[in-house]
């Protein structure tokens, strides 16, 4: 379980998160929606400790992320993250991109890591591209590779930070299909997204962020059909 309690985050004078409370259960798919600058991506970066926080507490399966004694490298093995800019390692082949962390972080042998990587890359439809460098892949393929790279660590949680925002429209579908598949397999996912149809279809709950807080949270039916807050309705109407 991921538990977020009263989290505040500031970048200098900019107060990005102003007291977020949220918990995500094992097996749940939670979508975060909201305007740009509402704090949803920052929230994601705080969960695996890529960003620090000024106040509050985030725990992942009881481990406090921002406690001094916490070994973040160890914690991050269990939390996969996929970024908006897909961040392929350009100097490594597709296969090497995926085997790197299992080998260097989990200490697996090259053979073991390759078995895992081939399995994950087949899973996302990139079995034919093992020896290729990322520059030869389309954006959608690079993003699917990034998903396979995160999955190769067999994480308990997957975080997705607007993973389709930087893609050409015709490539969005293949990435969303991959995520759909993961949610069906029971992966616990937190998805920051602007794809409302997707959020509605795969989420168990949807959180609407506004001005650094969760303004409204509920089932997709509640948020999209019958929002309780006028700002939620206004946001959904505006996009």
């Amino acid at each position, binding site marked *: 379980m991921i538990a977020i309690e009263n989290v505040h985050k500031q970048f200098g004078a900019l107060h990005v998160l102003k007291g977020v409370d949220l918990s995500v259960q094992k097996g749940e798919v939670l979508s975060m929606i909201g305007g740009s600058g509402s704090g949803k991506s920052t929230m994601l970066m705080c969960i695996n400790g890529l960003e620090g926080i000024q106040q509050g507490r985030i725990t992942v399966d009881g481990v406090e992320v921002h406690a001094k004694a916490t070994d973040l*490298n160890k914690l991050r093995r269990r939390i996969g993250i996929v970024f908006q800019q897909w*961040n392929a*390692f350009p100097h490594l082949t597709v296969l090497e991109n995926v085997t790197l962390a299992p080998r*260097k972080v989990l200490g697996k042998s090259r053979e073991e890591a390759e078995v895992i990587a081939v399995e994950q890359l087949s899973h996302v439809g990139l079995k034919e591209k093992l020896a290729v460098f*990322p520059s030869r892949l389309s954006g959608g393929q690079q993003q699917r590779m990034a998903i396979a790279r995160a999955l190769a*660590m067999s994480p308990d949680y997957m975080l997705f930070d607007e993973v389709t925002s930087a893609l050409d429209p015709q490539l969005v579908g293949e990435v969303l299909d991959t995520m759909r598949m993961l949610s069906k397999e029971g992966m616990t996912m937190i998805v920051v997204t602007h794809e409302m149809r997707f959020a509605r279809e795969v989420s168990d709950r949807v959180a609407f962020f506004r001005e650094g807080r969760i303004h409204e949270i509920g089932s997709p039916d509640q948020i999209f059909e019958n929002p309780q807050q006028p700002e939620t309705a206004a946001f959904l109407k505006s996009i």
Partner: protein
Amino acid sequence: MDYEFQWRPVLRSLPEMLWGALQTIEIAGLAMMLGTVLAIFLALAKRSGKKYLSLPADMWIETARNTPALFQIYMLYFGLGSLGLQVGSYTALLLGITFNNAGYLAETFRGGFAAVPETQTRAARSLGLGAVQTQWHIVIPQMLRAVFHAMTNQMVWSVLMSSLGVIVGLTTDLTGVTQKLNVVTYRTFEYFFVAACLYYLISKAFTLSARVVAWRLFRY
């Protein structure tokens, strides 16, 4: 002018000069490798934002780039000697060129590091790689590609600088051997002409092998 070229003595001592050339290659190559490693640390120290790291690195880089290489080698030979650390002329030359290489390369690497996007570090750390692993597997390989051409120049410079060993009494490298033969035979032009040709070939060989390495390494 009634100087007559005599090439036969040069040809006779060519094997000796080739042995000298081998030592020149050894010194230049070693100084380049050591310089590269040191330069990575210097560049990282400068980027660290910590004064106690960036200040010494800065002093090193500034001295290496703004004083003559000749002076740097002198300082290592006589300076260390006066501190009771007697080093031979070979070591003084090697350390001197290494010092110079590291200073120049550090400045090049700093630009190279800036060319690797911060998001690469983020992605690596998010997979659980530590700070050192991230540098080693992700950042440094990409940095080296960005600066490879500038490195090739320094490599040639490293070969040419090695000729300064003669000023601290080195007699076994290409310049040292040539100078020794010159003193005995007075065939100055002939000997130094052949030496210059050999320096040219060594420099070209370094550049060419760098290209081969780049072609093997940077396939992406």
